[in-house]
């Protein structure tokens, strides 16, 4: 992939930029503000943390039962303000989860949300200032 061009300091990222370049073409687990976990391959980024990610799956995890289910979403541009955090998925680290049928996982998730009283929406809505 071509190196991004920054004027004035050839070969160096501007002082304001975190080096997201090292995460390009890597498989990332991205956590959004609404709690969604997306896994995909990072292709491009910018200073707002807008991310272009390919082959995204939305992973629903039931931690208590150690199961997960994926929904394939394809290629997406994620607007930076929705990004909470992301990390590189390390293939050697086992997370101990097994895949389960999507319908079961979604049903269990809906159950958990109803009993927890947690909303499945933007957890930051009141915190924005």
């Amino acid at each position, binding site marked *: 992939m071509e190196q991004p061009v920054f004027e004035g300091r050839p070969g160096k990222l501007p002082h304001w930029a975190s080096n997201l370049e090292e995460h390009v073409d890597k498989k990332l687990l991205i956590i959004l503000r609404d709690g969604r976990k997306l896994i995909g391959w990072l292709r491009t980024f910018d200073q707002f943390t807008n991310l272009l990610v390919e082959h995204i799956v939305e992973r629903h995890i039931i931690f208590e039962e150690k199961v997960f289910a994926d929904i394939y979403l394809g290629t997406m541009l994620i607007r930076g303000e929705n*990004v909470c955090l992301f990390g590189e998925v*390390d293939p050697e680290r086992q997370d101990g989860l097994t895949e389960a049928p999507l319908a079961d996982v979604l049903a269990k998730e809906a159950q958990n949300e109803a009993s927890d009283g947690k909303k499945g929406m933007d957890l930051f809505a009141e915190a924005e200032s």
Partner: protein
Amino acid sequence: MLFFSFFRTLVDRNVQVTVELKNDLCITGTLQSADQFLNLKLANVSVNDPDRYPHLLSVKNCFIRGSVVRYVHLPAHEVDTESLQDSCRREAKQVGPNR
């Protein structure tokens, strides 16, 4: 730029911090880098409180967007308060009294 510089000194010293996010998640790790938006990169992330941890089971290092941070819990002995206060006064002088 004060806290950007401050974070960079912490990065140089490989300080371990716990970042508490606005959605109550808490992540502990070694501060690897920071930028002017106070985005943070943590290495070797681990969990303290399982209820507040976002199931980053297969992730060793992570990038945290500055805008979602509520607190950065620091070890007290790593903070040179006097030096920070001096820098703060200097910056305030540069910016001027009528900002």
